[in-house]
């Protein structure tokens, strides 16, 4: 079997489109998951038992079941309970909820790592809870949760490949389709791996860069 570079060139436009879909679902999925995950973490921390327990259960169920099955249930089971979504919105929703469960745990740990004294000092000068979260807790925990968050974002990037099973026209679906149409599995899978690896490398670099930028905020221990 030969490695056919001409084939790679000829399928480039199609690949670019698929790459766009992957980037888009990943980008919006991560943003959605961070926002939802943060809301869950805040709800669990400050919402009392009535909010904490149901949210805890949701997080446990989502973390305890495979993404593939969640996505199947949402896309193919959704219509039975009146949720009919197109592939891309369904994929985005699935990715957001799945990611949010993990991000909420990352943020929960982040909240707990902010020294209580820093919060007390803020209370003493009159900041209310939203101000404390916005001005003290978020900036202080950013540094702490950054490595875990970058990791999670990378995992979510690779999970976008799973969206192919609900026919989202992203990289994995498109490339494997090309592969089976043209019997060019080696070329297509090689390209696929290259794409993901490039993106992961890039986001890892970005994460490192931000860590360095934020390192001056590190805590002083006396």
């Amino acid at each position: 079997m030969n490695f056919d570079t001409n084939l790679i060139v000829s399928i480039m436009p199609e690949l670019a489109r698929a790459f766009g879909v992957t980037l888009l679902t990943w980008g919006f999925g991560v943003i959605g998951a961070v926002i939802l995950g943060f809301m869950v973490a805040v709800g669990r921390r400050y919402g009392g038992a009535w909010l904490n327990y149901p949210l805890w259960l949701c997080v446990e169920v989502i973390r305890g079941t495979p993404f593939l099955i969640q996505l199947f249930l949402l896309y193919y089971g959704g219509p039975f309970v009146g949720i009919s979504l197109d592939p891309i919105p369904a994929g985005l929703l699935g990715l957001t909820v799945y990611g949010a469960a993990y991000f909420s745990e990352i943020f929960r740990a982040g909240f707990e790592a902010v020294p209580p004294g820093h919060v007390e000092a803020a209370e003493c000068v009159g900041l209310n809870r939203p101000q404390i979260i916005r001005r003290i807790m978020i900036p202080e925990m950013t540094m702490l949760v950054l490595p875990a968050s970058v990791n999670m974002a990378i995992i979510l990037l690779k999970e976008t490949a799973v969206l192919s099973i609900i026919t989202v026209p992203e990289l994995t679906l498109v490339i494997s389709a090309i592969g089976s149409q043209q019997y060019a599995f080696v070329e297509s899978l090689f390209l696929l791996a290259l794409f993901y690896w490039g993106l992961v490398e890039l986001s890892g670099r970005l994460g490192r860069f931000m860590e360095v930028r934020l390192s001056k905020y590190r805590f002083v221990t006396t």
Partner: protein
Amino acid sequence: MTTPAISVKGLIKRFGEVEVLHGIDLEIPQGQVSCMIGPSGSGKSTLLRCMAFLEEATEGLIYINGEPLGFAPGPQGKPVRLPAARIRAVRSQIGMVFQQFNLWPHMTALGNVSEALKTVHGVRKSEAEERAMLQLKKVGLAERAGHYPSQLSGGQQQRVAIARALALEPKIMLFDEPTSSLDPELTGEVLNVMRSLAADGMTMVVVSHEIGFAASVGQQIAFLEQGRLVFAGPPRDVFNKPRHPRLDQFLDTYLDRGAAMLA
């Protein structure tokens, strides 16, 4: 007769099953330095934290300049919790300084001091920083305004923390072992700032192991042991003719360590 700056009435504090304060009655006079001393675990820090409403009293009431802090007497004599805005208003008369400084690591010294002015009081950034700068000058750190806490020594951090509390122009300053996490060399610079604050007539409550400071600057000394107020009075009554055996014993351990300045 003037209203006391702080008056503590029948304060009981329990953490779960453990009762750490067994009914404290104490008045902090206006414009004076009151020092609370006592062995570790005597409840002095808890008492101070109750005065800052960082701990809520299990029973009893606390008044700040005559206004109830956190809880007010209810119709059936049972204390009722005041609305959050009211609690913040009363708390704003108090400045608090912690043993661990508790500066916010992501803000510069100037940012730490001006934060509440900007966020809570809506003061314009330029004006807030101007006012913050005045406070940093007062503690001798104007030239360190742009430094982050991690770039400052412990003593400097504590002085920034004092400036942060002062920026809101509190009527009362509470100090919770302000020098306990500093080495002796850095202790002096913090105590000097506190001395000059006292000279300006600030009402101060200081929980400290610095018996020397208590003796020379304190105008009222309260000695706590095992959650009880054993003794409260002017320093000469405490240091010159100790009358309580446990207080004698407590002070002896300090004298043994060479704190001869007390005599």
